[in-house]
């Protein structure tokens, strides 16, 4: 397979994108803020700083996928630069998977960079308030960052699917944001409609069925969110890690295969 050249070009193009500086700046500012906030907390300082650090990592990753990732793929179609690529001896699915590989590398690099700052912020707080870190374990922090990476790669795969379906990058962006929102809310919504008495509302049986159906259709991104566990040092069993990784990779593979099927059949104007 001839994936590497496309992947390398995509990665370089992404790294050169100025948006990356903005994202890094945002991450740095947020981590400085975490230092200020942690001074206001009475007891659970460790929890708050881990919350803020890990949230920074996932939010900057999200910005990367939405504002750099989508441009890399969808702008090729928008600006018709794709004709140049397709005239070369490379198949359409090779192009698609190469782009995806480059984007995945870009995500891993950026998350590693922001993750480094996040870890630095935690270390700094730990030095300042060593007695206020309850049951804290480093490996859960790293696991959480790895989970975030996996969920961002899944989201990128979805954005590729949307890009091969629709004609403008703006619609791809909107659809990706929608899937992100649904993906993180769906399991809470399912829990809510299955036990509506918790907030004293009534839910029609049809709605429950619809939500349960949607639960299998949309990606359940909340599976990759173990920030609470990491913040409190709660146990994450090995079986749950294995199943989550299998789910993430499986869903990504399904979406990418669908995307390449659609993309190969697509007619360009």
């Amino acid at each position, binding site marked *: 397979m001839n994936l590497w050249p496309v992947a390398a070009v995509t990665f370089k193009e992404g790294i050169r994108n100025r948006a990356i500086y903005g994202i890094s700046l945002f991450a740095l500012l947020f981590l400085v803020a975490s230092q200020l*906030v942690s001074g*206001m*907390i*009475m*007891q*659970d300082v460790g*929890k*708050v700083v881990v*919350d*803020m650090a*890990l*949230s920074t990592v*996932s*939010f900057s990753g999200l910005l990367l996928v939405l504002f750099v990732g989508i441009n890399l793929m969808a702008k090729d179609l928008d600006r018709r630069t794709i004709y140049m690529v397709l005239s070369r001896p490379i198949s359409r699915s090779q192009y698609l998977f190469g782009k995806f590989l480059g984007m995945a590398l870009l995500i891993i690099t950026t998350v590693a960079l922001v993750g480094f700052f996040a870890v630095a912020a935690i270390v700094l707080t730990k030095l300042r308030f060593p007695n206020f870190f*309850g*049951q804290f374990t480093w490996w859960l922090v790293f696991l959480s960052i790895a989970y975030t990476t996996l969920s961002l790669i899944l989201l990128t795969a979805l954005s590729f699917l949307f890009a091969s379906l629709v004609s403008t990058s703006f619609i791809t962006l909107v659809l990706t944001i929608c899937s992100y*929102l649904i993906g*993180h*809310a769906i399991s*809470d*919504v399912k*829990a*809510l409609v299955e036990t509506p008495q*918790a*907030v004293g509302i009534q839910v029609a049986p049809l709605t429950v069925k619809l939500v349960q159906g949607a639960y299998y259709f949309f990606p359940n*991104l*909340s599976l990759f*969110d173990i*920030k*609470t566990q990491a*913040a*409190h040092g*709660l146990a994450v069993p090995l079986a749950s890690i294995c199943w989550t990784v299998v789910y993430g990779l499986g869903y990504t593979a399904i979406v990418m295969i669908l995307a390449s099927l659609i993309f190969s059949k697509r007619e360009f104007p």
Partner: protein
Amino acid sequence: MRRVVPIILLCALLPLHAVSLRYAAQARKALPQGREEAAYAIPGPILKITSLEFDGLASDLMFLRALVFYGSTYERKEKPRVKDWEWQRLYRELTAATDLDPYFRDPYYFAEGTLPWDGHLVNETNLLLEKGSKFRDWDWLMPFYVGFNHFYFLQDNAQASTYLMEASKRPGSSVTIASLATRLAVKGDRTETAIVFLEQLLTQEKDEEIKKEYKVRLKALKGIWVLEKAVASYNASFGKPPASLNALVERRLLRQIPVDPYGGTFYLDEDGAVKTTSDLRHKEDK
């Protein structure tokens, strides 16, 4: 010439911007607004949905909001410092914070230090702490707080004993707690038990403001305890209760009557129990 027109326009528009901002903001303030007292609290399960993957962060912010609000009331001159509906709002905010992250220690801790004391929200605080006790199942302080509230505010020794037993089983709890639990189950020696309780709380406390509050209460309770012991020994020596607390000093059982740190005076009621005119509350809170 071509450059002059935009510059003149800018010079004219900048003051207009400042003036319009000012008046627009004033006019907005005058718009009819919902009463803050009746503000609706969003239920936890809904908040969990809207905060997406940032539940923990949302919980931190909700807690800080409550904390900053409570801190800001110290600047107020009016009495009581915090109104009833504001206590209710604090309770709702702390509930929301712990719905978002039920493992977060600070909201429980802050609630125990404020809501049952001046806010008189004892049952609500217990409800909150029961959640804390369920999720933070390694933390002995959660059932300890509930036990303390049952003993001190609700005067229910049997319930208090049950919660303390639970606390004594958790890691890190001291031997005192187990003996407190048994003492509560056996007899109602309230003042001494309360002192032991408060001393236990004080050793755990790191917040200076709350510490100060506990210390004042401890001092008052110790005063009552000294008086109670003196009354008991008066009873034993003379076969009848003293007519007033001054009798204790006259008979040299006490050198002097202790001072109530809340600003009241200790007295002996008809049943022979030691009370204080301050009712163990700061004057301004009454």
